[in-house]
């Protein structure tokens, strides 16, 4: 059995914030970022059969997203008439016109990848993967969206003291994880 399996119905909950933050620093436009993520999910579904389970779901999705981002820059370049774009991505030996439909999940770890791994925001989101999904969501609503306590309590049907216990545990776990992986 492969070490990793795909569960597309959970992709949005698990990875959309991660993909969004990854994209936004690269394209700096919300609308474009949203479109690219949407395309990434669809391309991923199409190439799901190429997923070998060797990399994690997230690594694999990111590898597809990367190509979408590159395509995006190619497109705006060609619109400006600055660069010639080759529409055909693949060589003739392989099936499938589009590279992302051929994406496999073993990717060379390059120096660039290592650098990307150290991006703080993404490191934080990766650390949040380690805690209970619902608690992570509550923590994100509170900390990233800055929603106030009462609203979150209503949304998740918990008491304020529940909320602070959850926040406390999330912060403690996050601090420990970041100390290990970031500093």
């Amino acid at each position, binding site marked *: 059995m492969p070490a990793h399996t795909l569960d597309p119905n959970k992709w949005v909950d698990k990875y959309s914030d991660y993909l969004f933050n990854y994209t936004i620093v690269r394209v700096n436009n919300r609308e474009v970022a949203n479109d690219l993520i949407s395309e990434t*999910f669809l391309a991923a579904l199409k190439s799901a059969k190429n997923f070998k389970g060797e990399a994690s779901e997230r690594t694999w999705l990111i590898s597809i997203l990367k190509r979408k981002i590159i395509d995006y820059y190619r497109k705006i370049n060609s619109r400006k008439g600055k660069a010639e774009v080759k529409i055909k991505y693949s060589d003739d030996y392989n099936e499938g016109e589009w590279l992302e439909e051929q994406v496999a999940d073993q990717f060379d770890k390059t120096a660039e990848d290592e650098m990307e791994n150290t991006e703080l925001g993404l490191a934080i989101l990766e650390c949040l993967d380690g805690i209970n999904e619902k608690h992570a969501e509550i923590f994100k609503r509170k900390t990233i969206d800055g929603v106030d306590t009462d609203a979150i309590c209503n949304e998740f049907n918990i008491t304020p003291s529940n909320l602070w216990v959850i926040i406390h545990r999330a912060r403690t776990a996050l601090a420990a994880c970041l100390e290990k992986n970031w500093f």
Partner: protein
Amino acid sequence: MGKKSKFLFFDCSQAATCCDKSQYEEANLFQKAKLMLHLAFCKTCRKFSARNSRLTSLLKESKLEKCPEEKKKQWREEIKKEFAEEGN
């Protein structure tokens, strides 16, 4: 602890909660004063508090964003639809 000292002194778990709240600007002045008092004589909580503040500044520094809920909803539906089609 007597009533009076409870009024003035936090135990460590109260201090921790207060410290968490103050990371979100949700501790009032009096609670903050009690926290300071507790930190003055509790080394463990001082350490926790420093770590907690560091985490807050890291979170600010990271400029993390969440993508809008309506987008997520739309993607969920798209995936569900596509996935069902792929399965057939």
